[in-house]
């Protein structure tokens, strides 16, 4: 039987506010345990939460960017459960009335675009951390993270398989960084996913029983977890078994998911509106103010790149995957306006390759957009060939200076002097009389042999177009 894998994601994006969602303590990552936990965060008797306006605004930015409804009135609720790193014994979240409802995100697949619908996005506070190592059989509690604002973004089960899920997660990841609402740092847990996975026979209109896989903090883990989980479910069903609804954990070392708790063991969170917080009212004016402050979003930018620069939708998708990359591309084109396609190819090819090789982000490139444009302009004006340009690029990456300097220092300037090239061609034709005869007898393929000989002798510096012209002329005899 053919199976369809159905996935819905719950993404927790940590909002990049200075202070926590309900207290004035700082949110910076990496401080010594419990130094960023104030009276409110450790839930001393008598303390009260006060909502951070900046967190609401960031949630609104997200909602407006995905075409969602910003609720004029939303409600904070308490989710009650006991855990040592949950200081109040409840988490303040939103339940029945979230701040953001609906909306959609467009994702780029290899062959097409797909729209993924969102259910909602709601504000909540993060819990602290339990530390189980280094305490000689005891557990340590670090409440620095307690009260950090999170936006939980819930998708409909619109995703089919791990590739789509990853594409969606990447699109969200890019979007929250565009919007400057989340730093997207997955190692530090600023952006993490829970995946709801089910399988069904292709063509079935009914959803299968789902399992939720918790806390996937890399795109690779997300992909592996979904693939493992789907295969597990398919194997059970094909063996005549049934899937039990449960929460599962992904073991990254083994590449497996394992059961954490079944539906029967699921806790009753006893949600109710938090009486310490009034309903959140958002005015029309505030919504409009936030709307006006939104940057150009990936979808709009992608469309503009296609129409303004004549590059393919796929390339535009790659180049707009982050705000920094798109800015780099536009800066390069601004310095070399006639060649957007060439710029795009070099950024996605050579530059991306080197960044990837050295595990660097675009903002850590040693070759500025201006320097890259300088190099590319030497291809355009015929000073060097594309092939030589790669050699120059490598030197520039290693810190050898700008393109012109490298070309001069290494003597890589292309030989475009007709007289010089004609002399080389004459020499090669004279040295290979048999091949010349064969060519003239109709073995056209030998043309490449002559070009190769010229390049070999000039160490690749011969202007290829000119070599072709001269050879063609001389071989006709």
């Amino acid at each position, binding site marked *: 039987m053919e199976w369809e894998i159905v996935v819905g994601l719950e993404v927790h994006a940590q909002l990049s506010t200075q202070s926590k969602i309900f207290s004035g303590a700082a949110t910076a990552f990496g401080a010594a345990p419990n130094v960023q936990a104030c*009276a409110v965060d*450790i*839930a*001393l*008797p*008598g*303390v*009260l*939460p*006060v*909502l951070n306006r900046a967190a609401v605004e960031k949630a609104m930015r997200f909602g407006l960017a995905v075409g969602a409804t910003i609720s004029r009135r939303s409600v904070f609720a*308490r989710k*009650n459960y*006991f855990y*040592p790193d949950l*200081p*109040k*014994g*409840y988490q303040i979240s939103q339940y029945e009335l979230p701040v953001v409802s609906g909306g959609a995100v467009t994702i780029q697949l290899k062959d097409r675009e797909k729209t993924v619908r969102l259910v909602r996005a709601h504000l909540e506070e993060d819990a602290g951390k339990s530390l189980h190592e280094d305490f000689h059989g005891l557990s340590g*509690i670090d409440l620095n993270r307690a009260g950090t604002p999170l936006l939980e973004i819930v998708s409909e089960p619109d995703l089919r398989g791990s590739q789509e899920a990853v594409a969606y997660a990447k699109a969200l990841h890019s979007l929250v960084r565009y919007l400057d609402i989340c730093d997207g740092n997955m190692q530090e847990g600023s952006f993490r996913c829970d995946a709801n996975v089910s399988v069904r026979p292709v063509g079935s209109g009914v959803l299968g029983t789902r399992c939720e896989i918790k806390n996937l903090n890399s795109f690779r883990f997300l992909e592996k977890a979904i693939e493992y989980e789907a295969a597990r479910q398919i194997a059970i069903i094909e063996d005549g078994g049934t899937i039990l609804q449960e929460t599962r954990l992904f073991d990254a070392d083994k590449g497996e998911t394992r059961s954490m708790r079944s539906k029967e063991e699921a806790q*009753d969170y*006893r*949600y*109710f509106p938090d*009486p*310490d*917080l*009034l309903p959140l009212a958002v005015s029309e004016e505030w919504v409009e103010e936030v709307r006006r402050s939104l940057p150009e979003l990936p979808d709009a930018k992608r469309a503009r790149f296609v129409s303004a620069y004549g590059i393919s939708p796929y390339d535009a998708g790659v180049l707009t995957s982050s705000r920094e990359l798109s800015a780099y591309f536009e800066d390069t084109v601004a310095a070399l306006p006639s060649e957007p396609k060439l710029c795009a190819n070099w950024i996605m090819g050579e530059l991306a390759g080197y960044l990837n090789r050295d595990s660097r982000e675009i903002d850590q490139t040693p070759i500025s957009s201006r320097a890259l444009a300088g190099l590319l302009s030497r291809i355009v004006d015929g000073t060097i060939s594309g092939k030589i340009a790669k050699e120059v690029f490598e030197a520039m990456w290693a810190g050898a200076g700008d393109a012109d300097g490298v070309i001069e220092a290494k003597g890589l300037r292309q030989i475009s002097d007709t007289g010089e090239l004609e002399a080389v061609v004459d020499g090669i034709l004279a040295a290979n009389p048999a091949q010349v005869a064969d060519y003239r007898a109709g073995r056209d393929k030998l043309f490449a042999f002559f070009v190769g000989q010229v390049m070999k002798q000039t160490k690749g510096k011969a202007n290829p177009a000119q070599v072709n012209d001269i050879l063609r002329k001389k071989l006709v005899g």
Partner: protein
Amino acid sequence: MLNASLKELAGLLATKQVSSVELTRFLLDRIARLNPTYNAFVTVREETSLAQARSADERRARGEAHLLTGIPVAQKDIFCAKGWPTTCGSRMLSNFVAPYDAEIIRRFDAAGVVNLGKTNMDEFAMGSSNETSFFGPVRNPWDPGAVPGGSSGGSAAAVAARLAPAATGTDTGGSIRQPAALCGISGIKPTYGVVSRFGMIAFASSLDQAGPMAKSAEDLALLLGIMGGFDPRDSTSLERPEEDYSRGLTVPLAGLRIGLPRQYFAEGVNADVVRVIEEALTEFRRLGCETVEIDLPNTRLSIPVYYVLAPAEASSNLARYDGVRYGYRTPQYADLMDMYEKTRAEGFGAEVKRRILIGTYVLSHGYYDAYYLQAQKLRRLIARDFSEAFKTCDVIMGPTSPTTAFNLGEKSGDPVQMYLSDIFTIAVNLAGLPGLSLPVGFGDRGHPVGLQIIGNYFAEARMLNVAYQYQQVTDWHKRTPPGLEV
């Protein structure tokens, strides 16, 4: 000095006839002598109080005094005060020393008021007799065999026994007004949101409201002026201009329309209470007030509604007492779950556990709609009753409690009987309205009877005016329990 009003004490301080240190010392000595009998205070820190008194005297000498600078006030042990044990009447917090000040403590400090000590209370403010305190019951100064009411029983007894000129209380279902009534003093629960809840240990957040307890309405007005006001650290605090609650005290009452709810004079109210209340109403008529009968048809629902909503909120508010970060932790445990269970089993008393269980139940899946949501709907109906009533009257009056002070142990075995003690006060909290209790006479056993005045939202100044005018022509508020005159 024992019966002096706050204004009189302030006058003595201002004219240097007495210093704050002398006044504080005098009261601390009196507490040391009498508290073993009444158990009104759970914590006294003489040196700390005297140090505050000294700086108050210095402040007076510098001419920077607020009216009440140097006056000692007892604080209910529900308010966090930096460096003070803050127990909320519970074993759970028996070892907890607050590292920060509640907003009202900060306000009293800023005014130069001396913290005289922390008063006993029902555990986590859950009780109407002060018998649920981990630190033992408080005794009523009018009859040591009787309860002082609760939950602010320690504060009420401290003022009644003249151990403190004034005290603070909190009122979730009547916890200021009922003990004020049972101890023969005055107390006001302001409109919800007038006094900051920051640093006040939560019982039921949507109902909890702090207020002053004192000998007279005049004193209450001065204290409320310090306690009330917007606090950005409490999201339910109301952003309103600062108010002078004394401004209208002397306005005559002629023409005041007093609403008398049919339901507050029905069966279930003791005959002696009804008699005393009727006499008080006669006095108000003499002052030119007219009385109109009003209807509060949903009053009968207020106890069931309250005992769904308050425990629901409490079950969540008290979840933080888990033995992990502060407070009591059981000495022996096998694992995390065992630690939680033993800590909470040993740290909380029976009434608190009962309410946590009720609250957990009514919020549980499958019961939430039937209990919690229904109760919220009824809460709105109860509030609507009052807004209808205030179309035909200016204030509402009735007994604060259906009985006078009952004996220790008399109702502690029967929670429902105990809950009925708050039948006239609870609806006021559910509606968020202000309520005041003042002493208006004595019942058959010589126990005080309190009259409740309920006002519309933000009508505190008017209610204090009404009580003040009554206290100008009566002397019930000046009566001192037998044996405590000196």
